[in-house]
């Protein structure tokens, strides 16, 4: 059985003028030990999907569909049961290490919190376990840092602490929302290596959310590409890098320095902007920016469908083996 099965998740926000859809019919699953990447630009619904899995959507937003965690639907679970899952069996790593730690609480207290909450450890045992965790995530001089406050740590050290909190109770599923965006490149690689080690050791499933395709290529087994609140392509990582099926995926690849296949040294930006959630047009959302759009794209919105074994794309004219085929 899949560790996590997300089925037709839609997220909308209540506005005075009515409900506005933010995420539409997102489906994917994660197996134990699998690393799935979620790729897309800011505002495409990646973080919202992550928050919805934990039942932590901001006030005024609602999710519909099914989120099965080991068979139990998280969307219908009561709040006390969700609290027992969060930080315990599902860990969440946020992107901003500057603001995700409580500035008025010591590092030690914050790392001990999930241990005391979920595993019922006393202060003494929780301290010993928290120190072990801080060593494991390779925080320099953990004993001394234990009683420090977040402002006394560097950005990379803080992010390590955030990871320590998320993995404290050995979760089966780890969701990392842009875990390295705020860090410099060397620190980025260290943190990612750390995440890889952790998932290897414990068979934890990892949902890695990022807009950095380089990180994706290094880390993930499979990639979900999101655009305008929907998944537009899902492919094994190597396949997607070698031959993106959706024109948006291809656009993203071509916009990366060095990695652009067959590029002449110039980056190729994707023209135009993402339509705002309240102003999403009929038909394909990428149509206005798409170099290969056909008439059908304006009339009907393409659904995600299988185009090759293990690969699917939401496109009327997916690029198969580098060539646009009519489907």
């Amino acid at each position: 059985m899949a560790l996590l099965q997300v089925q037709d998740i839609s997220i909308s926000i209540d506005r005075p003028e009515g409900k506005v859809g933010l995420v539409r019919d997102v489906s994917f699953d994660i197996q134990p030990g699998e690393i799935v990447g979620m790729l897309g630009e800011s505002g495409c619904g990646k973080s919202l999907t992550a928050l919805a899995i934990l039942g932590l959507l901001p006030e005024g937003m609602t999710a519909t569909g099914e989120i099965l965690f080991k068979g139990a639907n998280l969307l219908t679970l009561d709040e006390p049961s969700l609290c027992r899952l969060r930080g315990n069996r599902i860990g969440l790593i946020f992107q901003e290490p500057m603001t995700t730690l409580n500035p008025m609480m010591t590092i030690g207290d914050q790392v001990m919190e999930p241990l005391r909450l979920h595993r019922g450890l006393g202060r003494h045992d929780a301290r010993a376990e928290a120190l072990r965790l801080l060593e494991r995530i390779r925080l320099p001089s953990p004993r001394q840092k234990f009683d420090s406050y977040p402002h006394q740590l560097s950005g990379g050290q803080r992010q390590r602490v955030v990871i320590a909190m998320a993995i404290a109770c050995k979760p089966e599923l780890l969701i990392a929302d842009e875990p390295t965006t705020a860090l410099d490149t060397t620190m980025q690689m260290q943190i990612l290596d750390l995440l890889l080690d952790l998932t290897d050791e414990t068979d934890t499933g990892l949902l890695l959310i990022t807009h950095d395709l380089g990180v994706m290529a290094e880390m993930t087994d499979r990639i979900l590409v999101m655009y305008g609140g929907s998944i537009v392509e899902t492919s094994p990582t190597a396949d997607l890098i070698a031959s993106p099926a959706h024109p948006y995926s291809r656009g993203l690849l071509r916009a990366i320095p060095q990695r652009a296949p067959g590029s002449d040294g110039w980056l190729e930006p994707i023209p135009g902007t993402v339509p705002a959630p309240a102003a999403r047009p009929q038909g394909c959302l990428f149509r206005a920016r798409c170099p290969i759009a056909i008439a059908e794209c304006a009339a009907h919105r393409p659904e995600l469908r299988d185009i090759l074994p293990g690969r699917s794309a939401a496109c009327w004219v997916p690029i198969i083996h580098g060539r646009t085929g009519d489907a």
Partner: protein
Amino acid sequence: MNRLLLYRLASWALTLLAITVIAFLVLEILPGDPALVLLGPDAQPDTLEALRQQLGLNQAAVVRYFEWMSGLLRGDMGTSYTYSIPVSELIGSRLKITIPLAVLSTAIAVGLALVLGMYAAARHNRVGDYGVMAVTQIGVAIPSFWLGMLLILLFSLTLRWFSAGGFPGWEAGLWPGLRALVLPAAALAIAQAAVLTRVVRASVIEVLNQDFVRTARAKGLTRAQALRRHALRNALIPVVTVIGLQFGHLLAGTIVIENVFSLPGLGRLIFQSINQRDLMVIKNVVVLLAVIVITVNLIVDLLYLVIDPRLRHAS
């Protein structure tokens, strides 16, 4: 030592010095001759002159200021014109009422504000929030002396739970003393609580939107646990600031409320002293009230250091 602390202590001393100068100057400018008030309008000019001599009113202002200051440093506040007893003794006995009154009132205000403010913040933009906000709007608008009279009407005259005024003295025991202070403290506390509730609410709402509260929830804390363990301490700084600022208003409020409830406290003393041109009492009470206010605000500054580790380490 912390630089912030040194700076605060220095500014405390300078403020105090400035206050003594201002208090002295204001009373110099104020019309009214204490000798005339004491002896009545029919007094003989030579008797008046003799009394002025005795009270030291004939000396130059500068001389009188420095005499007052050197007295203060020795703990001698002079003798009251009207009561003919040392001012320090007079003030001491009155403080026994006003300080407990102010502390009790602050406790009521802070207690109410924390409960209502956190409740409103937790129910942000829902019925409970609107209800609390409406009540605080009324609380801010009600004058404390009028509320005091309403409280007397209800709890003293109708329900007969508390006395309508007066003070039995602490010799009568702790409970009878406190009982006499409950209604005036409540009358003073309502307006303070109303303002403070709004501050608590706004501050908690702001903190609840911070990323680390979301982190706390992602760890598995319930909404209430996240509020208590993570949001409250962070929300306290603006709340403590306003409590300090309100303490001055509270002391000013005692002048009115002690008259409504006939409590022989500092507020009533200053009211009577002004009527009787008892300059010796007035200037000393004014300075004392100022000392209390700036000391409370000094304590508030020190509390910042206790609450926020970032300030403790910055120096």
